[in-house]
Every structure is written in structure tokens, then in C-alpha cells.
């Protein structure tokens, strides 16, 4: 392909990315160094936004909460996704049906899924899960007003929404595992667990890693679910980093736009660091002839 043709094909996409992503990003970085509100030019404030973010205990809590949620939910997603993928992969006739049912929570807008989820637990809306739990255990759980129960339903909802993705990716990996290897292992008389642990899991390591990477990146940015599921997020210490940005940089006219932008930049740096092994891999591949 000649260079001129290549440029013509790629140019519209590059222009859109530059004009609509790079320019706003530049703005965010600029704001992060300013004392600023919407619609008016800001005044340079050095790194004061960064220092006030890093010394704000509320931001610290948001980071701890978000990272905790990410770690727990990602672990459940990878393990659960693997087990589920093995089971669904063994199905024959019923597979499209089961896949269809399992895909629904992935296709639904997250805010809608989380809203429906909240009605399972909220006694004000006749939450059936809370009611059944109450009947069985005789205990009343305040899912929305005490910190840990609220965290449990948040983890459940995050897993609920992302499990189909994890399962599908791992299932694709399972289909690529060579049958010869499995047969050879079976002839050698390994147990089921050994077969999974020593044969199958090592050969789909790359995909499991990728599932973990995507889950981590997505859950670090969690926002939608918290609106219906954690109306008291700030008081409970269940505020995610993105919700923190929203609260300080948009609600009530965005008095702290500079602070929010600084947090945006910090989050960006964290995500870039997490992506770096993947990016280095891509660069290495590109250098090959």
C-alpha cells in the first residue's frame, strides 16, 4: 500500500481522535493545573490541585474502596468465568439457549441492570431477596445504609454485569486448547483437577490475563452501578474514584473542577501503568518484519 493511500484511509479517523479526544484530554490536563469553573478562564494554580487530592482523606477512601472492589470482583470474575465456561462448553444442544440467557446481563445498560438489582434488596420496594433472607435467617440487613452489606451488593452487581464477558472470552480460549494434549494427559491418568491446573489453565494463560486486564480497567472506572445501588456512597465510604470526580467536578456547578481534573489525570496514569505490559507487547510485535 502506498503511503498516500494509507494517509487518505486513516486521516478521518485520526482527525476525529485528535479533535475529539486529544483536545479534551489536553483541556483536562490544563484544568488540573488551574483554579477554574465551567465557562470561564482559570488561573494557574500549580500543583495545588494534586496536593489537595492526595491529602484529601475522602479521596484516599475512594481509592481504597475502588481498588478493593476491583481486586475482589476481578478475582471472582476470573474464577467464576472459568468454571462457568467449562460447564457451558460441555453443553451441546442447550448451549445457544444457555448462552442467550447468560448474555442478557452483559447487553443490558448497566444503570438499568443495577436499578433492577437494587429492587431485589430494597425493603421500600418489596425486595424479594431481602425478604427471603429475613424469613430464613431472621435477621434484617441494611443493604443501602451500612457499609459492608452495601459493598456486598456492589460486588454482586459488578460480577453479575461482567461475568458473561469473562465466560465468553475464556470459552474461546478453551476451544483453542489442543485435544491431543488433553487426551495424552488422560492416558497418563491425571485427575480432573490436575488436568485443569497443569494442562488447561497454563495453555489459556494469555486469555485469562486479558480478561483480568479488561475487568480491572473497567471496574477501576466504575460509576453507573453506584447511582442506584449506593445512594449514600459518600457517607458509607463506598464512593468510587469516578463518582468522586463527578461529585467534586460536576455536581453543584463544579466548584472543584480543577481538583476533579487532577484526579482524572491521576486515574489516567494508573490505567496507563496497568496497560504498559500490553502496549510493550504490541510495540514488539510491530517491530517484527
Amino acid at each position: 500500500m502506498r503511503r498516500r493511500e494509507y494517509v487518505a484511509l486513516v486521516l478521518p479517523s485520526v482527525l476525529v481522535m485528535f479533535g475529539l479526544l486529544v483536545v479534551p484530554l489536553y483541556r483536562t490536563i490544563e484544568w488540573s493545573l488551574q483554579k477554574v469553573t465551567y465557562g470561564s478562564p482559570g488561573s494557574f494554580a500549580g500543583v495545588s490541585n494534586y496536593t489537595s487530592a492526595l491529602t484529601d482523606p475522602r479521596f484516599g477512601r475512594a481509592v481504597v474502596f475502588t481498588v478493593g472492589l476491583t481486586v475482589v470482583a476481578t478475582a471472582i470474575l476470573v474464577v467464576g468465568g472459568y468454571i462457568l465456561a467449562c460447564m457451558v462448553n460441555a453443553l451441546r444442544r442447550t448451549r445457544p439457549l444457555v448462552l442467550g440467557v447468560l448474555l442478557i446481563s452483559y447487553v443490558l445498560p448497566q444503570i438499568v441492570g443495577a436499578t433492577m438489582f437494587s429492587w431485589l434488596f430494597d425493603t421500600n420496594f418489596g425486595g424479594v431477596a431481602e425478604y427471603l433472607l429475613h424469613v430464613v435467617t431472621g435477621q434484617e440487613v441494611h443493604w443501602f445504609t451500612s457499609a459492608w452489606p452495601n459493598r456486598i451488593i456492589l460486588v454482586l452487581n459488578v460480577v453479575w454485569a461482567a461475568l458473561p464477558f469473562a465466560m465468553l472470552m475464556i470459552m474461546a480460549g478453551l476451544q483453542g486448547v489442543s485435544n491431543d494434549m488433553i487426551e495424552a494427559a488422560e492416558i497418563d491418568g491425571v485427575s480432573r483437577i490436575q488436568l485443569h491446573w497443569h494442562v488447561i489453565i497454563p495453555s489459556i494463560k494469555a486469555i485469562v490475563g486479558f480478561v483480568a486486564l479488561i475487568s480491572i480497567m473497567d471496574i477501576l472506572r466504575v460509576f453507573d452501578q453506584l447511582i442506584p445501588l449506593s445512594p449514600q456512597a459518600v457517607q458509607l465510604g463506598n464512593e468510587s474514584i469516578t463518582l468522586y470526580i463527578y461529585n467534586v467536578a460536576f455536581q453543584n456547578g463544579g466548584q472543584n473542577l480543577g481538583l476533579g481534573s487532577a484526579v482524572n489525570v491521576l486515574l489516567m496514569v494508573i490505567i496507563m501503568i496497568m496497560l504498559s505490559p500490553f502496549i510493550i507487547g504490541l510495540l514488539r510485535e510491530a517491530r517484527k518484519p
Partner: protein
Amino acid sequence: MTIDVATPPVDQHPQTAVRKSGPDRRRGKGWLIGGFLFIICLAMLSPILWTAASVTKPTNVAFLNPPVFFYHPTFQSFVDLWQTTDFYRYLINTLIIAVISTAAALIIGVPAAYGLSRFRGWTSAILLILALIFRSLPRFSIVLPMYDLSKTLGVYDTRFAMVVALVAINQPFSIWLLRNFFAEIPQELDEAALLDGCSRFQVLRRIMLPLMGPGILTAGIFMFLFAFQEYLTALILTDVNAKTVPVFIATQLGQTLPMLQQAGAAAMLLTLPVIAFAFIAQRYLVAGLNSGSVKG
């Protein structure tokens, strides 16, 4: 738990002396897995099933505690939703924004992905990496400046602003998906057509596009899905005129009972096509997840 990866059933337990016990045991295991999967499916569906029940109850018992399990179903909340709110308008907004932003992302993304799949060099690698980075940026780092800009330009709360924002946000991912589909088409095809006197653009239009049908459909489905699901961007960039259904449902949450039940009805109206979609488009969703994201 079995990994039944097309192993001939007889060979599975060569050392079992009594062959008869083999199939029986496997059948038992099959039932166990089946039962487990059934429970998982039920659990995954439970929020939807419960909402479906809640919105078909008469309003006075809809959200009672302890919950009412037996009632005379009614569709009054759907009628109310349609008559007393602007749901219809929000639905139209959601669909128009999703369709136009999908089309625009594809029109921009298809040639770019083709170029990237055929031109090897450091610029291609850099562009792909940029696309990956843009896909994973914190959403507010893009959307808040867009909010500011849209207010300055006077396009705040218009479908236009939403479409532009969604094209910007989702287009990088479409390049990833499409490039992998293009990469699977052998380059010899292009070269043969070029030798026959086609120009690059003719190759793209006459040879690649027909071959890429399923790939473009897959990318289109994902773009549509992302646009249709988007809450955060719509929350920031819309107010009244361009409001979408997810934002509408979220704002109804703070309301009292009849409106809440209507929010549930709206959620169900959005869910039913999604269920149909999960079954009809299953093949493309699976193909897209497999090829778009796994392979570098």
C-alpha cells in the same frame, strides 16, 4: 465438572473395568452440571424476573413489604408510562443517537481499519496503541471538557452533541474490532485486484466490503450496544431535549411510587428487545468478543 472437548465417549475412561458404569456416571454428572447451570441462569435472570413481576402488579401492592407473590397482573404502569411521561421521546432520542453514532463510527472506522491492516510500519502500531489507550481513558477526562465546549458552542443538550461524543468515544474500539477482521482476509486478493487495474478505494468498496459483511455487522452491533448503554455521557451532556432512556430511568429513582413503577416499566421495555437481541445476535457477539479483543 467435565471438559467434554469432543473426546470420543468410549475413550474417556479406558481403565474402567466395568464399562457400563461409565455412561451412567457421566449422565449423573451431566444432570448435576445441568442443575447447577439452571440455578446460575435463574440467579442471573432474577433481577429481571422480579422487575417484570413488580411492574405488572397493581400499583397499590407493587412495592409492598413483605412482597406480594400472588396478584392479578395488569399493564397499567406501561400505559401510565406512555401517557404521563415523555418516555416515547427519550426512546426516540436513544435510538436516533445510537443509530447515527454507529453509522458514523463505521464510516470513519472501516477505511482506517483497512489501512491499518495493510500498511505495516510504526505509525500503524502507534495508532493502534492510541486507540487502545483512548478506549480505556477515564470517561470524565473527555466528557467534562466536552460539556464545557458544548455550552460554549451552544450545542449542549442536543442529539448532535451526544452523537459527536459517542463517535469520539467508541470509534477507537471499532478500529480494533475491524482491523482483526480485515487481517484475516489474505492480501493476495488486494494485489490481484490491483493488478487488474482497480484503485485502492475500488478494492475496499468492491472486494473488501462484501467479504467483510459479518465483521462490519459485528462491529456495528458493538457500537450500537455501547451507544445504547451509555449513561455517564448522556448524564453530563443532556438535560431535557436530548435525554436518553438510561438517564430517564436513573432520574425516576428519586421519585415516589407511581413514578417508580413507571421507571420499572421503562426498564422492562428496554430489557425485552435486549433479551431478543441476546439470542438473535449471539453469534456476532461471540465472534466480536473473540476476534476483537483477544488477538493483538
